């Protein structure tokens, strides 16, 4: 299913982004992370409750047979990290939790943390109330073991945590303290400690296996719910009565499995699902027509863009790129193809989830909004003239580009059709090609493209997000890029600002980021289409005590949630 696929891809990208959001707010220096104790830390309340029929809620996800071949979150593939990351959130815990609604880090298994030794050591005190589902105690050894698995298996360390100038050593200090020793200042570390491949694994189970190829069919975690069973239509989890922050109210989570969003959305509409993280955007209006169905919507650190190869003739002209930027009708994309499940983006690229760091003068500035007349003016001012076919050209070279988009994605293709129709209207000709996401990634890396309509999957740290425009992350067309600067964009000033920001204090950094964003908006190395939205659809007639300060589908929200 096309839309299923997109949404799945989007979900994958989204989940990655969220987990790496982790890296967000390098700016804050994450000083405050140690100060707040784990919220609601009164485990005493989980006394045995009067027995009755077990309470349960129905969740749902796109869960193909291929994505439940292992329950090992350390692995980059074959598990639910990409398709239904909430599963791991329910069964396991990180040291820190990234709250996607607020864009903040909060402690999870960590009780408190502090920077020592001129910020080259990060000390984490663990919540020793935590216990493994099989009754074994949770200790610092488990944490050390988990990080050492990443160190010893490069293929698992996808965030390059053990890279140069990052982690040097992770050691236990007694049963309840872990020391992270760093090669250089690395203030974003806590964000990395909430990435999907840093869920803490039980040493006593994993050490008997090869952790890099362990399928972990019967996952044992410290999480709010225990894995109970799986069949072709559902994964069933049951409450962990010993959860360290206090057990959940709801006895069972029934995670309904679907293989495409159309089917999933039908189930939501029919009322089979109480709480859903994934839904096809097209079904939003219908589902929300029901007065008891509500949606929680928050911006993700992720956007769909027209990625342009700034080295290609035509696209190396900023006037042409600006014209393309102005030819995208974002309002229509948002309203009539995404049904308001996305956000109007920041033309300076940085996702609006980053709040204060976003250059507020950009998102609503008409200078960057849909305007075909202004777009055409950019072209005529730059000396382009229309040829017999109605295409602008200069020096006999018409503005004609190949335009790639994702195969097998109805919504993406519809959006591409709308955009290319507008481009044609301003006299820019496109030849549409479709390719799968791996192929598109390959094309972008190699520079063998003109325009690609896709997400750039940068880590959610604003620094890393903006570094996709740094010249160190690019290479000439024909050579694979070492980073995410697929645009082949080079600007000395942007480089300088970003380098300065990497070690600057929070305030300076903020100002530098604003300058970078303005420049990106003006030079348009890529054109942002919309910012992806994180969603939770829930039934107000069945659920109460909804904590909307975090994603409703998160373990934190579900812990306090009650069924009516």
């Amino acid at each position, binding site marked *: *299913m*096309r*839309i*299923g*696929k997109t949404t799945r891809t989007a979900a994958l990208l989204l989940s990655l982004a969220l987990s790496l959001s982790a890296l967000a707010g390098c700016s804050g220096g994450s000083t405050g992370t140690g100060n707040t104790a784990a919220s609601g830390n009164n485990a005493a309340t989980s006394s045995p409750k009067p027995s009755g029929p077990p309470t349960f809620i129905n969740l749902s996800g796109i869960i193909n047979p291929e994505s439940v071949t292992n329950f090992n979150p350390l692995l980059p593939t074959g598990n639910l990290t990409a398709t239904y990351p909430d599963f791991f959130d329910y069964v396991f815990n990180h040291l820190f939790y990234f709250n996607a609604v607020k864009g903040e880090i909060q402690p999870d298994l960590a009780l408190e943390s502090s920077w020592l030794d001129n910020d080259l050591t990060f000390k984490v005190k663990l919540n020793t109330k935590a216990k493994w589902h099989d009754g074994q105690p949770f200790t610092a050894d488990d944490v050390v073991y988990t990080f050492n698995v990443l160190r010893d298996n490069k293929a698992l360390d996808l965030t390059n945590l053990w890279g140069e100038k990052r982690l040097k050593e992770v050691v236990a200090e007694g049963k309840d303290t872990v020391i992270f020793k760093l090669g250089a200042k690395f203030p974003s570390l806590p964000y990395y400690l909430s990435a999907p491949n840093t869920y803490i694994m039980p040493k006593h189970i994993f050490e008997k296996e090869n952790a890099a190829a362990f399928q972990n069919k019967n996952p044992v975690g410290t999480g709010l719910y225990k894995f109970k069973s799986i069949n072709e239509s559902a994964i069933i989890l049951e409450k962990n009565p010993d959860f360290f922050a206090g057990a959940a109210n709801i006895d069972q989570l029934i995670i309904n499995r679907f293989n495409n969003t*159309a089917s999933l*959305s*039908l189930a939501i*509409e029919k009322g089979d699902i109480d709480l859903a993280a994934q839904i*096809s955007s*097209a*079904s939003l*209006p*219908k589902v929300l027509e029901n007065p008891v169905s509500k949606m929680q919507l928050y911006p993700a650190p992720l956007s769909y863009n027209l990625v342009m190869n700034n080295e290609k003739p035509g696209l190396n002209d900023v006037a042409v790129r600006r014209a393309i930027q102005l030819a995208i009708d974002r309002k*229509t994309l948002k309203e*009539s*193809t995404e049904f308001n499940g996305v956000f109007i983006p920041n033309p300076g690229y940085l996702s609006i989830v980053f709040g204060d760091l976003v250059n507020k003068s950009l998102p609503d500035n008409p200078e960057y909004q849909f305007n075909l007349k202004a777009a055409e003016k950019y072209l005529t001012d730059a000396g382009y003239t229309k040829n017999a076919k109605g295409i602008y050209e200069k020096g006999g070279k018409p503005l004609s580009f*190949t335009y790639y*988009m994702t*195969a*097998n*994605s*109805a*919504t993406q*293709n*519809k959006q*591409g*059709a*709308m955009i*290319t*129709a507008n481009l044609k209207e301003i006299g820019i000709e496109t*030849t*549409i*090609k*479709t*390719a799968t996401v791996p*192929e598109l990634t390959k094309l972008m890396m190699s520079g063998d493209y003109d325009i690609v309509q896709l997400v750039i999957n940068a880590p959610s740290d604003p620094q890393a997000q903006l570094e996709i425009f740094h010249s160190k992350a690019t290479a000439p067309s024909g050579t694979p890029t070492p980073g995410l600067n697929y645009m082949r964009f080079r600007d000395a000033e942007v480089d300088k600002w970003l380098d300065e920001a990497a070690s600057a204090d929070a305030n300076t950094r903020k100002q530098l980021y604003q300058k970078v964003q303005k420049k990106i908006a003006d030079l348009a190395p890529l054109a942002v289409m919309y910012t992806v939205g994180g969603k939770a659809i829930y039934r107000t007639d069945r659920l109460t005590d909804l904590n909307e300060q975090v994603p409703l589908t998160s373990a934190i929200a579900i812990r306090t949630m009650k069924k009516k």
Partner: protein
Amino acid sequence: MESVLRKTASLWSLIPGKKGKAGFVLFVLFAVVALLGPYLAPYPVNKLGFPTWMKPSAGHWLGTDSYGQDVLSQLIYGTRTSFLVGICAGALATVLGVTVGLLSGFKGGWIGEVLMRFVDLFNIIPALVLLIILASFLPSVNVGTTILIIGMISWLGMARSIRSQAMAERSGGYVEAARMVGMSDWEIMFKEIMPNLIPIILANLVLLATGAVLAEAGLTFLGLGDPLSVSWGQMLSLANANNAIMYGAWWWIVPPGLSIAFLCFGFILIGNGILEKYRANRGNAAL
């Protein structure tokens, strides 16, 4: 004028059987819609901006879709794509199938064997993979490439059928006579044998066109067709992706499906009519 009428009448009488005539009427109907599409459609093809999910009404006979586009206009423009793909892909497959089939059947021997084994081998690979591989080699996806792709994978059955017929013809006296006159193999194949197989070829062409229309619909449904084209398959795939079922929008689901069905039905009736006549003429040739 009169001569046109007479010609039409004689053409009409050429179409075999009542079913064949019924099929031809359907065919002509769709052909007219395909040709005159822009004049018949009430609105420009991709005009957005109507309210979404409108039920059929006087202003929109078939309502509007999730993007606020007029479904009837889409349906009318879509006729063109489906028609074009059907005819062209069918023709392409026919050319390939006839050539390979004749060559293999007439030449026989190892050439024939090798060609047929080749056909067998390609029969094994699922069409889906072949489609994706072919698509990745082509410079861009548009109606032309869709035609090319479908044409290139659907000639296999035709080659078989032509081969068996050609093998039967090979032993015919007229082939021997042509040889005596000194005609080359190619001449014999295409000038002597092929004319005898015209009804079979025509029938196959029409049936391949059916297959092509359905393949285009399936391909587009899987998201592997031309994303820009307005076609019946594209309408269905968008309807499914945008949960038309949930909205109870039968007016977006039923018309394209029925259009595909009736166009193909027309093709099949024509093909069947030709085959029946051929059978009757030749006395139960095994087809």
